[in-house]
């Protein structure tokens, strides 16, 4: 049986630094998997490899049996995998609605010829897409902030928007890079509820997370990464209660 997402033998160096070391794991469909590990373990690097922003020195990534090697980021989004960024990377001068609408697949008017010669068709399609985008924003709880510029949103709202943006791509596997970091208690609960809701709707989530409470509350599986290599995997209880891993995570050197 082919794994949903299979990462095999990833190896990558940045100059003298070995970021990934024979890293291999699989993700199962429909589950929320948390990727944990100390800083510098290679978590964001793995995201970059899976989503085509980085070509690893060695190793392959396969999604639903299809190899993703060498594909450009936008092709991987079309294949069904989308990611968020630790530093958000929202379009700050655009509205929340525009941020979501950009991510919507195949819109008429995305190239000049259609925009100039079929303005009515473009406008009508945009109205439909706008409804879709508003629904997505509503889904994450940002419907009333649709017209506001991103620079005017709170940090918690911006984080919700990053999730809305990946939802808009229509991807089924979502890679979320620290979706809960820096949030207040209320915003934290909102995000966790959202992630669980996405799971019930059929999305598969791979989440990088530092907050152990979040990991405990949402993760079905946990992958513990250290020095670019998968050290351990299992249920949240098993990983969190392991003293050796705790030593690495909290006490060990970077």
């Amino acid at each position: 049986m082919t794994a949903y997402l299979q990462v095999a033998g990833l190896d990558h160096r940045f100059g003298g630094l070995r970021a990934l070391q024979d890293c291999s794991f699989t993700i199962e469909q429909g589950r929320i998997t948390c990727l944990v590990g100390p800083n510098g373990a290679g978590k964001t690097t793995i995201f970059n490899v899976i989503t085509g922003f980085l070509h690893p020195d060695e190793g392959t990534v396969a999604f639903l049996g299809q190899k993703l090697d060498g594909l450009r980021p936008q092709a991987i989004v079309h294949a069904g995998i989308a990611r968020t960024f630790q530093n958000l990377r929202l379009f700050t001068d655009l509205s929340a609605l525009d941020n979501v609408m950009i991510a919507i697949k195949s819109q008429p008017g995305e190239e000049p010829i259609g925009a100039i010669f079929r303005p009515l068709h473009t406008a009508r399609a945009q109205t439909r897409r706008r409804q879709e985008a508003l629904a997505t924003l509503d889904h994450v709880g940002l419907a009333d902030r649709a017209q506001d510029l991103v620079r005017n949103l709170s940090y918690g709202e911006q984080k919700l928007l990053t999730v809305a943006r990946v939802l808009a791509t229509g991807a089924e596997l979502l890679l979320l890079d620290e979706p809960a970091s820096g949030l207040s208690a209320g915003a934290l609960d909102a995000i966790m509820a959202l992630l669980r809701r996405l799971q019930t709707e059929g999305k598969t989530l791979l989440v990088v997370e530092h907050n152990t409470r979040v990991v405990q509350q949402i993760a079905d599986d946990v992958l513990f990464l250290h020095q670019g290599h998968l050290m351990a995997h299992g249920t949240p209880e098993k990983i969190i209660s392991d003293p050796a891993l705790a030593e690495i995570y909290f006490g060990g050197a970077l």
Partner: protein
Amino acid sequence: MDFLYSYIVFAEIYVLLGLSTNLLVGIVGIFSVSQAAVFGVGAYVVAHFLMASTPLSFIPSLVIAAACCVALNILVTLPSLRVSGDYFVVTSFGIQLLATAVFTNWATGTGGANGLPGIPPPDVFGLSIETTQQYMLLCTVGAGLGCLCFYLIMRAPFGRLLRAIREDETAVAAAGKNVLRAKVSAAALAGAFAGTAGGFYATFLSFIDPSSFDLDASILLLTMVVVGGARTLAGSIVGPFLLLALPQLLTLVDIPTTIAAAARQLIYGVLLILFMLFRPQGLAGEKL
């Protein structure tokens, strides 16, 4: 009165060029000093077809010129943008200098340094445009259509995509969109505008020579966008109208003709520096 009509015609031609430069430099954020070269290609191509042994009429010639300029811009941006922005700077300078060399030395095609005289006035749907006033009407239609296209593009998802690319290309790629294709399309469109402007220029002046399409001309185009304002329709209109009035103002000051051109270019340089330092959004635009 004729003098005012001339000014308006030139301003409108440069509005088309302003839209072109604004698309490339203002909206996509590509540093281009080769706009005048593309302008020149448009002018020479239209002139060629209007004066060929079996001449074409104005609008078909414009279409061919626009197509040539689209191809030129795609050819130039596609390889260099794949590598890095600074590579395009070198490419742009290279294209401009190369174009000037071609315009000046390929005497059979372009008349060489002496230029191409005797370009016939345009004939549009059987009507021959003879007077300056008639030309102004034609040009206004042309510039108006250009502005309309620009407006439609910026309103459409394409415009939003370009704005997002300016902010963060990586995030756009992560949203599933092809950044390179969008940039090259914008460059192609900029080529179409510039080529069309060239056609109008050639038929209005009935004489063109390489000095209208050199590096100094490209610098003037940049200045128009910088002063008028980047990334907006208003900026693309304000810039040309203002900067074309400048030479008229300069005639009030007593400057010897030998250095008149240098004086103008000096002012453009100063304007570029001042606006970049103190008002990067220009008069009616958004911050560059």
